[in-house]
Every structure is written in C-alpha cells, then in structure tokens.
C-alpha cells in the first residue's frame, strides 16, 4: 500500500449502528469506493475519496458501527484500533468524524464523550437532520457544541446538497488537524464510568435538545409488525413473496439473456468453421458462461429484497420475531441476518457472522449458514424444476413450481435448525446461551441511491465470478469433455470417450444408489468451484453429446434423459450441496481452524447422501423411477 507516501488527509467515520453512517459514506464518496480486507482479519475495509469545495482530497474510512471503543467483536476491535492508531497497516486518522442519528442522540453522545478521550480532533455530524426537524426535534447546535467541546455540523446524507455544510466544515478543520492530536487518555471504561458518561450525556440532552414524543409511525407499524401472531405471519408472507418474486418476476429478463446467448451461439456456429475452435467458443465459452449469467436477474431481485428490508429497518424486527424460534434451536436472534444473507451466498453470510460477538453463537451460525439456499443453487433448482415440475397453478393462484422452490428453501431452513439444535448438544452442552440485545431503529424509507450502489456491487461481484472462476472451470470442463478425441469411426457421442466420462464413471458407483447417472457425477466435480457451475457443466456435457440445439434447452434434454426420481434426488442433494469449495475456504478462514471446515464438509456430505438416497428410493417406490 502506498498510504504512507500519500499526502492526503485521512478521516475516519465512526458511529453507533443505524446512524446512517454508510449512507453518509456513500453520499460523500459515491462510486469512488474501495472495498478490501484489513490484513490478517476478515473485517471489511471500506475506504473512499472525497473532494472538499477547496479541492482538498480526503480519504475517508468507514468503520464498523459501535456503541463503545470497548471492543467486543472482531469488527469493533478494528474500529478501536483504527481510532486509536494502533493498527500498523493503517494511517491514524487526522480527524474522527462521529456520525449520529439526530432523532436518537442519547447513546451517540455518550460515544462522543468517550471518543473525546482519544485526543484526536473530533467532529460530530448530526445525520438525518431533516427527519429530526420534521418530527419536531429541536437542537441548540451552538450550545451542544459548547457543552460537548466538539464542533457539530448537520447533514442529510440522502439529499442532494445535504452534505454541503459538512464538506465546508471538513475543509475548515483539515488544516488544523495535523498538529492537534494530544496524548490519548482513553482506556476501557468500567460500569461506573459508563454510567457517569451516560448521565453527563443525558444532562447535555436535557439542556440542548427538545425531544418530542417518539415516532408515531414506527409505533403504529410495530404494533402490527411485531405483533406475536400477525408479525410472524407477515414475516413469513414477506419471505414467501420474496421467493415467488425470485422465481417469476425474473423470468422475462432471464429469457432475454438466454435468448441473447443462444443467438450469439448460433452466430458463432454459423461463422466459425466446424472444428475444435468452434466447439470451444460455442459449447465451452458461450453456452457455459451464458447458462450462469442468465441467473443475474434472480440474484438481483433477491438482493433487492434484502437491501430494502435492511434499509427499511425491518431486519432488526425480523431478528426480534425469530429470536425465540432460533433460540430454541440454539441460534442467536442476531444470526438471522447472516443467515438471511446466506440466501444470497454463504460467503458474505459467513463473513457477516462477525456481528455476533459470542464465539459459540458465531460457530453455530457458520456451521449452518451453508444450508441456507444460496443463489448459486437457484440455477440448479430452476433448471430441474422447470424441466420436471409441471407449470400450473394450484388453488388458482400459487405456481406449483414456485411452491416446490419454497419447499426446497424450507427444507434448507428446517435442516439448519435441526443441525444447530444437535450442535448445541454435541459441542456446547454445558455453556449457557449468551444474550440477545439489539437496538431497533425507527423505520425509514429506503434510499434509492444506497440500494442501487448495493445492487451494483453485487452484480459486479457475480459477473466477475462468472467471468473468472466459472469461465475457468468451463474451459476445464470443456477440455475434460472433449479430450481425448474419440477414435476414428467410433460409435456414439464423442464425450463417451473423454476424460470426463472416465472420471464420471469412476465415481459413479458411489453415486449410483442415489439414482445419479455418470453425467451428473461429472457435473458435480466442477460444481466444487461454485455450485451453479454444475448447471453449466451439465449444459456442456449434454451439448457436446447432443449437438447445438441441446445446449439451448438443457432442461428439455434432461427431461428426456432423467427419471423423475433422479431429478428429485438431485434436488435433495442440492439442498445440502456440500461441494462448494469457496464456502469451505471461507469457513476455514473465519474460524481459523481445519476442524470446523472438516465438520461442515462431513456433516453436509452425509446429509446430502442420505437425503438424495431416501428421496430416490421413495420416489421409485411411488412409481417415479
């Protein structure tokens, strides 16, 4: 890193959770953001550049939210170490920018009092000032600044021009920052000090802030959304709509992408001379990458729901509603958010378990996160469901395909609860479960810009993956499926003579009891790189053995070649899908132990095998063989 050679200013954003810190960071830095990791730990390091009105370039670091510098989780340790300048890889911040929600200042002001002891220049930003003003919160800003002994500025992160005043103040403060640091007197406060600081903060609030009655809209919404019965029903309804949406809304866009790749494939077929190069471009590259890229719309819809619910402030409510249900299975209410993210991908899900400060809770969550149906399984589910489950409505409104999808998701959730329940007895029998404590923010309308930046980041990550890992695997699969070439005059499809067939046949005896044919056995191998690659691999395997037309309709081909029992067993296998190498790698990294990686792989493999075995034989017994 060249940070030491960089003459620019370094400011750090600190704040309590839900203070709108990330929205402010997005507003200030826009797309000029860099997301990386802090060396040695897996805490995300978000930094971005901003330019003040006078042209000063400032590097802004967005630190994980915290109520105190008294670090209780790896995330909060990063915040503490960066603020205190203890992290060797990091330039100590010239200015600490403390972001606070203007409608909820009580805990933030205590944090400000604690931050003052660090001895670095400090600025308090009263964020979401428009909401506070609308609600009738009156703040005597000059007096607040005087009583805190800290400059105070207001901002509205989500509105154009809402940060002008803040930028102007950053400009003013920057020159004085360099020499303003005094020795830190911070040390982890004990309960008496915390009490005293909170009392002092409360006294400052009494003399400078007029707080009206709490938000009535939030109270009205919570009366319904946190209702013991209605609240849970609404939560499940939201999840149900989410999966129906993922399945049906995305269809037109997916068809469009699929048609695009099919046209491209046909164009290649007609342009290039027949031979190895044509086969490589058409079957290896275009049909391989195309069959994965077409799932982008579904992934975006899923993330759209997650981001909207998060920005709305609903996620904390969901954690509240789920706490007892998940607690019964030995999970923490806070595990709900990592587990929900795991519906997109287990990797960010497992990484976000860092919000759980208790080691035992965190390990249980990591253990079951891969059972949440990640978006990489969607291509597999969609393909098999589309090919084998009739497209019709039941009860006049619910799509049968959507219902099967919902059932697969439910199976994943139920098995996750079961596994964590068992883990509680196997690993943590004598440990009492740690507390669930969570602030519930007021509801806020999601900010389109923030949601768009979030979606953009996900789309980029997915396409990068499709363009690198998956593309690489496709080339390997194509190679395995194409070489060695069949002997001259050989009968049957060329792929029957390839390396892929040899490997597939070698592991086939192990998988035959599940009703898997050797093509499935072959497809599961590249599926280790990423689960969705199995679809592309099936496409490659069948397109090479069946011609160009088959590549466009993998589902159609499968419907002709697999029995219903095999298809259902394959779906059951994919509820667990133990073969995702990147998930295993991230588990190793997050837990720092091979043991937990091996435990995860072992139990998932066992469950997948048992589930597929049972499904196949039950289906055959019922006449679907």
């Amino acid at each position, binding site marked *: 890193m060249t940070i030491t050679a960089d003459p620019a200013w370094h400011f750090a954003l600190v704040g309590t959770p839900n203070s709108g810190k990330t929205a402010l960071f997005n507003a200030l830095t826009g797309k000029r953001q860099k997301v990386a990791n802090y060396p040695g730990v897996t805490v995300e390091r978000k930094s971005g550049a901003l330019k003040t009105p006078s042209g000063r370039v400032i590097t802004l670091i967005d630190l994980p939210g915290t109520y105190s510098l008294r670090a209780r989780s790896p995330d909060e340790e990063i915040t503490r170490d960066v603020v205190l300048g203890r992290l060797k890889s990091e330039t100590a911040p010239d200015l600490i920018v403390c972001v606070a929600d203007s409608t909820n200042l009580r805990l933030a002001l205590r944090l400000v009092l604690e931050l003052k002891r660090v001895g670095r220049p400090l600025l308090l930003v009263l964020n979401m000032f428009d909401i506070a003003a609308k609600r009738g919160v009156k703040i005597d800003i000059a007096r607040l600044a005087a009583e805190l002994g800290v400059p105070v500025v207001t901002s509205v992160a989500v509105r154009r021009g809402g940060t002008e005043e803040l930028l102007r103040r950053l400009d003013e403060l920057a020159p004085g920052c360099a020499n303003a640091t005094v020795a830190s007197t911070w040390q982890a*406060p004990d309960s008496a000090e915390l009490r005293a600081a*909170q009392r002092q903060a409360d006294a400052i609030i009494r003399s400078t802030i007029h707080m009206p009655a709490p938000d009535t809209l939030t109270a009205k919404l919570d009366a319904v959304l*946190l209702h013991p019965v209605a609240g849970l029903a609404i939560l499940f309804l939201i999840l149900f709509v989410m999966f129906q949406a993922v399945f049906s809304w995305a269809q037109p866009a997916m068809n469009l992408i699929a048609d695009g790749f099919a046209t491209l494939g046909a164009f290649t077929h007609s342009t290039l001379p027949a031979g190895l190069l044509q086969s490589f471009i058409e079957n290896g590259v275009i049909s391989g990458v195309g069959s994965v890229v077409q799932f982008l719309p579904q992934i975006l819809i899923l993330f759209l729901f997650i981001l909207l619910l998060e920005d709305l402030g609903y996620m904390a409510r969901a954690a*509240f509603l789920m706490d007892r249900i998940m607690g019964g299975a030995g999970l923490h209410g806070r595990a709900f958010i990592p587990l929900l993210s795991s519906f997109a991908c287990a990797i960010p899900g497992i990484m976000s378990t860092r919000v759980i400060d208790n080691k035992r809770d965190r390990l249980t969550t990591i253990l079951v996160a891969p059972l949440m149906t990640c978006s990489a399984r969607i291509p597999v589910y969609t393909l098999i469901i589309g090919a084998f489950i009739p497209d019709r409505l039941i009860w006049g409104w619910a799509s049968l395909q959507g219902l099967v999808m919902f059932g697969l998701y439910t199976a994943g959730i139920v098995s996750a609860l079961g596994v964590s329940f068992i883990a509680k007895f196997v690993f943590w029998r004598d*440990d009492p479960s740690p507390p669930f404590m969570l602030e519930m923010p007021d509801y806020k309308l999601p900010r389109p810009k923030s949601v768009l930046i979030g979606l953009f980041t996900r789309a980029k990550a997915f396409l990068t993956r499709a363009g690198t890992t998956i593309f690489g695997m496709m080339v390997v699969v194509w190679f395995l499926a194409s070489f060695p070439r069949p002997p001259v005059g050989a009968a049957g499809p060329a792929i029957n003579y390839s390396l892929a067939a040899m490997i597939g046949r070698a592991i086939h005896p192990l998988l035959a009891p599940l009703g898997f044919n050797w093509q499935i056995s072959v497809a599961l191998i590249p599926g280790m790189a990423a689960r969705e690659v199995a679809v592309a691999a099936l496409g490659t395997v069948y397109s090479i053995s069946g011609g160009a037309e088959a590549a466009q309709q993998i589902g159609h081909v499968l419907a002709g070649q697999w029995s219903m029992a095999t298809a259902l067993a394959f779906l059951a296998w994919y509820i667990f899908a133990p073969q995702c190498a990147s998930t295993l790698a991230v588990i190793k990294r997050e837990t720092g132990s091979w043991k937990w990686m091996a435990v995860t792989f072992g139990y998932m493999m066992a469950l997948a095998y048992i589930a597929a075995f049972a499904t196949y034989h039950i289906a055959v017994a019922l006449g679907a063989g």
Partner: protein
Amino acid sequence: MSRESQITAVKPRSPLGGALAGFCGRIEAILVGDDKSGLPPDELERRLIELGFVEGARVEILHEGAFGRDPIAVRVDHATVALRRREAMAILVT
C-alpha cells in the same frame, strides 16, 4: 412476617424481566445477579448501560415475542431495544 414487610419496604422495585407488555416505569438500579446469562455479570452490566439502561431512564415494554412472551422490546427514553427477559431481570424498575 417482619422479614416480608422488610422486603416490600426496601424494594418496591421489581425486575423489568418480570413485567408484562404495557409496563411503564423508571429504572432504579442495574443489579446483575447470578441469572445464568451467557456473560460475566460485569460485562452484562456494561452492555446494558451502553444500550441506555441507566438509573433514572424511563422504560416501557412495547412488545413481547410470541413464545413465552420473550424477547421483549423496551422503549428506553427515546430508543427501542430488544432483549431477552433473562437479561432484563438485571434491570430493577419502579
């Protein structure tokens, strides 16, 4: 008899963890007993304070969970905090 009256005289206060939805009151003390919480008593006390549970703060139980009336959503002055009843036993209110 005298012991009973002494108890009521010394503490008309009761744990927040035992109160029902709709309860309104003021925090008298944070007193972490041996309640088998997953945290050491001192750590639990500090976390409660960091979430705003300080003597004198007004509290109101807004919502209860569906199963065993747990967890509870508590308004502490102007913020809302969710916690389990087991931890809320350490918050003594009047």
